[in-house]
């Protein structure tokens, strides 16, 4: 088993989101909430205390007609690798409730271990983490629709996108029963990927040159996973968080906004 473990290459699951295709419909958000038993309240208008593992933001270029342009940008957890797995949230967690898995590249969140100090939320530059201010209350009968593969959270813990890790667990189960240790690309896909009607989200292993994500984003593993595709960029690239979610856009202002440029800053970026 040990020998076989050595033979299985470490995965680095990641996502490519094509912002030119994204229509901002929010199907990914809805699919995510249903898939992951994400709690909601009667009044969700206060976005400071609502929970959305996947969140679609809208960007504008701030110009007037006819140059006005808008771009929708879905934001899951970036599953930062940073340097050697020291993701911002992982390194601050005093409870080891969140960790970086070197075999899958997924940043986990263990709800039963979290005690709700919210350091990780302060550390996360992407606002990808959410705090449960209340126990979830499901509308009558809806608890029967909850997924048994994802444990519901309780009041006082932090939660975030897990790249639908339970789907990986189930896919691995199937592979084990069939005597395999490797998954096919289509065996493990996140809920948002499958829900996107525009096909804007692509998911797969960035380490596997056969997977679409690595073909499109062309991550340069020697240089912190920077995309070699000139249209690809990552959010806040300069922070060195080495996120595993890549965005594609043919529009320069979007790419610049993704890296949070200030207005009068020089044009040169890293792409």
């Amino acid at each position, binding site marked *: *088993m*040990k020998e076989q*473990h050595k033979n299985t290459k470490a995965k680095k699951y990641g996502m490519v989101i094509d912002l030119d295709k994204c229509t901002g419909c929010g199907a990914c958000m809805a699919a995510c909430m249903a898939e992951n038993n994400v709690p909601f309240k009667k009044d969700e208008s206060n976005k400071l205390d609502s929970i959305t593992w996947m969140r679609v933001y809208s960007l504008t270029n701030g110009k007037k007609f006819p140059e006005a342009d808008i771009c929708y940008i879905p934001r899951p957890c970036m599953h930062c690798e940073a340097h050697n*797995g020291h993701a911002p949230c992982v390194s601050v967690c005093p409870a*080891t409730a969140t*960790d*970086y*898995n*070197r*075999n*899958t590249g*997924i940043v*986990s969140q*263990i*709800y*039963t*271990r979290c005690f709700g100090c919210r350091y990780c939320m302060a550390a996360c530059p992407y606002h990808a983490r959410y705090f449960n201010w209340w126990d979830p209350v499901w509308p009558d009968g809806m608890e029967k629709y909850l997924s*048994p*593969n*994802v*444990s*519901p959270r309780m009041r006082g813990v932090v939660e975030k996108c*897990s790249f639908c*890790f*339970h789907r990986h*667990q*189930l*896919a*691995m*189960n*199937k*592979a*084990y*029963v*069939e*005597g395999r*240790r490797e998954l096919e690309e289509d065996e493990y896909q996140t809920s948002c990927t499958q829900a996107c009607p525009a096909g804007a989200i692509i998911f797969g292993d960035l380490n596997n040159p056969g997977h679409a994500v690595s073909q499109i984003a062309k991550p340069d593993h020697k240089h912190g996973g920077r995309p070699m595709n000139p249209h690809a960029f990552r959010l806040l690239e300069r922070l060195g968080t080495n996120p595993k979610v890549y965005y594609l856009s043919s529009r320069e202002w979007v790419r610049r906004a993704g890296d949070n440029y200030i207005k009068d800053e020089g044009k040169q970026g890293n792409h």
Partner: protein
Amino acid sequence: MSTLDDKAGETVEQVETTKSSEKEQKNREWGIILIFFVIGLVGSLAVGWLVFPKLLYSKKKQPVDFNHVVHVAAVEDGCESCHYFREDGSFSGVPKLAQCVGCHEEAQGENPEELKFVEEYVTKGNEVPWLVYSRQPDCVFFSHASHIKMGKLDCVTCHGHIGESTHSRVYEENRLTGYSRDIWGKNLAGLKKNTWDRMKMDDCAECHAELKAEGKTIETLPWPISWMPRPYEKPASSQVRVHIQKDACFVCHK
């Protein structure tokens, strides 16, 4: 002056007599304290070790008394005949009624438990509300596939010799947590003789962490399973080395 001295002597004597009586009284007090301490200690131990567990765990009977021995003898594939893997890799766990109906459409014998099963569940089409001894909290992801198919572990390692039981044992439910007593373990002192005595996270971690050091196999572990061979257990050489890292929380959690 002399009168004063005399008086002083008297008072000294008096003080001495009172001192000795005080000593006796103090000893007696200590004795009483000791007696009460012992009574209190024994009492609280008795409450904690005998009364509290009885209060904490409710005893429930399985809806139907199940005889594993008869069934294991009747089927060909051992445990996997009824507790099988589905095609999607999930584990079936406790069989559903549909599976039992395959043989028990009608009562096969005169056993009152079987008659009860057929009458109350098969003919009425109701699922049997089995009480699952090994039910884990919902934050736990346990992959039977990885342990049985890849790790080549035996059912016995975690579930004990349930296949040799002729009656369903009493299901003890923790009134506070709602989980089976099999999870926390029967031993009040927390001692563990067999791998199947407990099913807490520590018990999973024990196997995974002990084998973390490279080169260690399950044979070298100071566990009963390594020196208590069972006829239906696979040889120890087929047992696995389990590899785990600190970053593996998401392996068993969901």
